[in-house]
Each structure stands twice: as structure tokens, then as C-alpha cells.
């Protein structure tokens, strides 16, 4: 009885001649409007503005701050947090959290060192083994999150403790000294080498960090896999229904995070010279990397933010710490002021975003 259905929709005759052009409105074109629009489209630029402001202020407050050496010191101080931040960013983009990043880094560095010194394995092979084991630790996290469906916070809280404890047990808390490493296995210290353009030392580790940020940024924006990472974090059910292999993506993300942490562990050897199971990164690496990620504008609820933002986030913290220490005196007051500045930085960031919305 298709005819009474036809009658019921007879008013659709009015559609004949409906407009077929895409809606357009004239735009405001003032310089301010264009800046606003650019910020709206490029939210990772906002922390950059905060960063530049901080640098200028500290430069005015402390005469030594603007020296090339200070800047290069800051960069080398954030190298490890930055690499851990890459790992953390991936995980946080999937709406997860990884409390074990620092522990994986420290344990991987210990494994690389002990493989060489305890069993006499050639350093390059020890390094590869260390990287592989770091990846495996990340994989274990991913498997528990994706397959057993446990909350990432709990999984990585557990593996954080497990890995750190394993690290102490396996290493018997013994430090491998820098001079021994330099002699026997310089490859372990590779990332501690530097180039010195104009007398200013820049560690290989700094270039590594920048390269990692650049590559990851490309991968996240320009490849299908990157889009899937965002989709999984944005709404996992929707991603699943839309045909993303959410479990596989999650496992890959955590495993990759593990690899990055192991790379950070290798970098730690170069940077600190020695291999020490009690490096503070094991305890603090998680909170430091999460801080960089959040200041950089990545949402802890997943799916929003960029790795470049994380890089600026790490830099902001590095600049604040160095700047305050150069200006101030007492570590307790420095600690106090860093807390204040972090809140302020994000408040300014928020304010710029609002103005540009």
C-alpha cells in the first residue's frame, strides 16, 4: 500500500529546487581575529607562549639565565622527562595512565648495565636486550589493560611496584660506576656525548628527544595508527563500533611506551654516567611525566592534545625549576614557588585559550 505512504509525504514536493551550495558567511579578517583563529586551530602553541613569557621574565630576574649554557643545561635536564613524556603522552591519549614509566626506565638501564658487567655480554647486545625487555614490560601493562580489562591506574601502580622491587632485587642495589662503564662499555654512555657548537655543549640526548617528538607528532597526526590512538582515547566503544581494533591499539601503545622508557633508561646511563638502581626517576618519573603531559594540554580523559604540547610542558617545568633556583636561594622556597608557578602557567594557558575560543 505504497500509495498511502506516498500521500503522507506529499509535502516533500517542496524540495524541488532546494539550494545546492555549501553555506558560507563572510569572515572577520582583523589581525587579532586571525591570531585568535590560529590559536584556536593550533592549541599546542598556547604553552609555547607561556614558555616564552617565562623565559623572558627569568632572563630579566637573573643575569646568568640568558647564557647559552643555562639553556643547554635546561634542555639536558628535561631530556629524560621528555622521553618519558612521549611514552606517557601515548598512554594518556588512550585515556590511560602509566605509573610505571620511571620504573621501566630505571630497570632497563640496570638490565643493560648488568648484562654487560655481570654476564659479559657485549654492550650493543645488552642494549638491545634492555630495549626488548622494556618493551615487554610495557606489553604486559597493555595486555592487562586491553585483555583483562583492568583500570590502567591499578595495572601500572602494580607493575610500578613490581618492577622497582625486581630492579632492587636483581641489582642487589649495586651501582655500576661511571669510570668502569667508560672503560668497558662506552656504547652504554652513547647519549651522553655532545656536540659543542661555539663552546656550548648540546647532548646527543637532546637531539634524540627532539627527533622523537617530531616523529611521534608525525605519526599521531599523519598516519591511520595515530588517528586510531586518538579514537580509542576519545570514546573506546565508538572506536570499537567504528572498526578500530581497540585492544590491539592499546597493547601497541603500552608496548611502545615501554620501549620509549627503555630508551630513556639508556639515555640515563649516558647522562648520569653510572647505572644506579636507586635513581629518583624510578619513584618520580611518573609524576614528572604526567605533569609535562598535563601542562602541555593533553587531557587525562584521553583523545585530546598533542605531543608537541607535552614537549613545551616539560620545558616549562624545566625553565621554572632552573629559573627559580637561579633567582632564589632556599630549596624549600623554590619548591613552594614551583607549585605556584605551575598553577599559574596553566591558568594563563586556560585564559589564552578562552580568549581565542
Amino acid at each position, binding site marked *: 500500500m505504497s500509495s498511502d505512504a506516498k500521500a503522507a509525504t506529499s509535502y516533500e514536493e517542496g524540495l524541488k529546487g532546494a539550494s545546492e551550495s555549501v553555506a558560507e558567511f563572510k569572515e572577520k579578517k582583523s589581525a587579532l581575529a586571525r591570531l585568535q583563529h590560529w590559536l584556536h586551530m593550533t592549541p599546542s602553541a598556547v604553552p609555547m607562549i607561556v614558555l616564552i613569557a617565562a623565559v623572558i621574565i627569568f632572563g630579566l630576574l637573573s643575569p646568568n639565565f640568558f647564557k647559552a649554557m643555562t639553556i643547554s643545561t635546561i634542555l639536558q635536564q628535561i631530556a629524560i622527562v621528555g622521553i618519558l613524556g612521549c611514552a606517557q603522552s601515548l598512554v594518556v591519549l588512550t585515556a590511560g595512565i602509566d605509573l610505571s614509566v620511571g620504573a621501566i626506565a630505571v630497570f632497563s638501564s640496570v638490565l643493560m648495565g648488568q648484562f654487560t658487567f655481570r654476564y659479559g655480554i657485549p654492550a650493543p647486545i645488552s642494549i638491545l636486550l634492555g630495549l626488548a625487555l622494556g618493551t615487554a614490560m610495557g606489553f604486559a601493562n597493555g595486555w592487562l589493560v586491553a585483555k583483562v580489562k583492568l583500570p590502567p591506574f591499578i595495572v601500572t601502580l602494580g607493575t610500578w611496584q613490581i618492577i622497582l622491587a625486581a630492579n632492587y632485587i636483581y641489582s642487589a*642495589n*649495586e*651501582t655500576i660506576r661511571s669510570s668502569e662503564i667508560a672503560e668497558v662499555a662506552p656504547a652504554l654512555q652513547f647519549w651522553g656525548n655532545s656536540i659543542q657548537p661555539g663552546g656550548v655543549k648540546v647532548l646527543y640526548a637532546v637531539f634524540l628527544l627532539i627527533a622523537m617528538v617530531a616523529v611521534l607528532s608525525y605519526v599521531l597526526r599523519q598516519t591511520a595508527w595515530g588517528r586510531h590512538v586518538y579514537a580509542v582515547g576519545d570514546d573506546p566503544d565508538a572506536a570499537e563500533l567504528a572498526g578500530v581494533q581497540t585492544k590491539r591499539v592499546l597493547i601497541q601503545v603500552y608496548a611502545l611506551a615501554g620501549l620509549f622508557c627503555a630508551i630513556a633508561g639508556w639515555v640515563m646511563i649516558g647522562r648520569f654516567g653510572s647505572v644506579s638502581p*636507586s635513581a*629518583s626517576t624510578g619513584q618520580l618519573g611518573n609524576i614528572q611525566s604526567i605533569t609535562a603531559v598535563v601542562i602541555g594540554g593533553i587531557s587525562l580523559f584521553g583523545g585530546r592534545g598533542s605531543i608537541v604540547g607535552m614537549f613545551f610542558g616539560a620545558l616549562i617545568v624545566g625553565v621554572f625549576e632552573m629559573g627559580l*633556583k*637561579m633567582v632564589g636561594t632556599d*630549596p*624549600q622556597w623554590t619548591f613552594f614557588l614551583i607549585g605556584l608557578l605551575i598553577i599559574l602557567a596553566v591558568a594563563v594557558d586556560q585564559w589564552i585559550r578562552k580568549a581565542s575560543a
Partner: protein
Amino acid sequence: EGTACLITKTDTNPFFVKMKEGAEAKAKELGIELKAYAGKIDGDHEGQVAAVEACIADGAKGILITASDTKAIVDAVKAARDAGVLVIALDTPLDPIDAADATFATDNFKAGELIGQWAKATMGDGAATAKIALLDLSIAQPSVDVLRDQGFLQGFGVELGDPAKWGDETDPRIVGHEVTSGNEEGGLKAMETLLAKDPEINMVYTINEPSAAGAYEALKAVGREKDVLIVSVDGGCPGVGNVKDGIIGATSQQYPLDMASKGIEAIAAFAKDGTKPAPTEGKAFVDTGVALVTDKPAEGVESIDTAKGTELCWG
């Protein structure tokens, strides 16, 4: 017979790990069961209170404890003693010291003072214009942290402010204090920061040897490792090795294995017939001694060389 508990500040610092090994060896020898506990971080006295409670619940005969907070732990210790458990403070005296049945410890102020005196003598006239970096433990300023720092400054001839805390001295020779968590990573970062503040630093005090090793890496990175004097505390084998290699100028050696084994012996004796150990003559505690280890002895400061130091080192 019976169990003993060892409660350390943490179980990550090699110092405590070796202490535990010493205690274990002795306990085995004397046929005592040893259970070890540790705080989660340095300064975790709450974890130590929980450990004391677990020991009481578990019916231990004696407790060896390196207190994270010398005053805050006192009530828990009292509860243990009331329950008939022998409590011995190791490494760090309680406040008041008689809160424990006995104390086997290093005199941490003296440990600092020794390296301070040595540094002053070694620098000679330069000491008057020295630029000093102090690499401390943590901003919570636990008692070892304060005692060593203040001992060093006193030994070096710097006028102290409040001796109960570091950081309030006004002597212009002090470039600054930074905290290190007592490891290489912290030592390196702290040194880098202080160097950015004043690249001319030539005297570095460090809370312990791992942080000294970190500081050395930072100095090496800017090519200043040869003209800076580093002093430290602990006397662990890697630390003594670093003294021998000229990385650390001098370190004050402590004897944690002694503390531990003496502690276990005391518990064994107590378990047998209730005797309690007596303190060193003239002191309120059993001083397990401290020795300055250096290959460049300075006049007027007693020291041993690294050969002897290696013989006595712990781990």
C-alpha cells in the same frame, strides 16, 4: 631462638641493604630468625610505626631500627618495649636517646665535621675565599641530613645559624644548597643547577657517595672536575673506590655491618638471659666509630688511606 626485626629507613640505599646482609649473616650464625622491614621512602616513619606494630603482633624478641624521624617514632618504640621487646636504635639515635634500650650509631655530626676540617686544611688559604656547594638529602631535612651538613660547615669554619636546620647560614662563601635524594641522578642535577648559578664553585659537600658521584659527572661535563674538591660521607666500597680514583677527596666512613651484627648479638643475649648492652664510656650510645678515608691526609685531621678503607668498607 626467637625472631628479631630489622627496620631500616628504606630498602633502596645500599647502606641499608648491606646492613641487612650483615644482620642476616649474624642472625644465621646465632640461630635467630630475622625479619626485615623498611619504609617506602626516606623519612617514612609511618611505615616504620606499622613495621614495629607488625613485629609486636608477630611476637618478636627484639627490634633493630634506623629511625626515619628520631622523635616521631618514640611512642611506637615505647609500645614495643612495654610489650617486652628489646629495641635497639641503629645508625641514628632516637630523641631522647634513652627511648631505645641501646643505640649503635655513627656520630653523624662528627662525620661531617671530619670532612669539613679536612677540606679546610686541604684548601689552605683558599678556604677563606672558597665557593661552596652543599648537596643535601631532602627538603624534609631529616636528622642525618642536618647533622652532616652542619658538622661539615662547622669543621670548615663557617658560622652556623640554627644548628637544627641547614640553609640559614649567611656566610657569602656558600653558593647554595640543593637536595639530591642521596643518589647519582639527584647529585648530578643539583650540581648542574648550582653551576649554572655560579660556575666558579670549587668546594662540594655531599650527603653521601652516590650523590658525590653524580656531582662529579656534572663537573666533568663542564671540564671542572680537576679543580673542585668533593667530600662525602658513608665509606661504601664504591665510594672508597671513588676516593682512590681521585673523584672524591675524602669521605667519612661508617660501619653499618658492625652496627647490625652488634645489634643481633645484643638481641641474642637479651633473649637468653635478659641482659641489655651498655653504652660506650662517656657517651649515651655505643659509638660504632667513624674514620676519615683519604689518600691525601691533611695536617691535624686523623685519617686512614684507601687501602685500609677498602679493607673496612661495606659492600
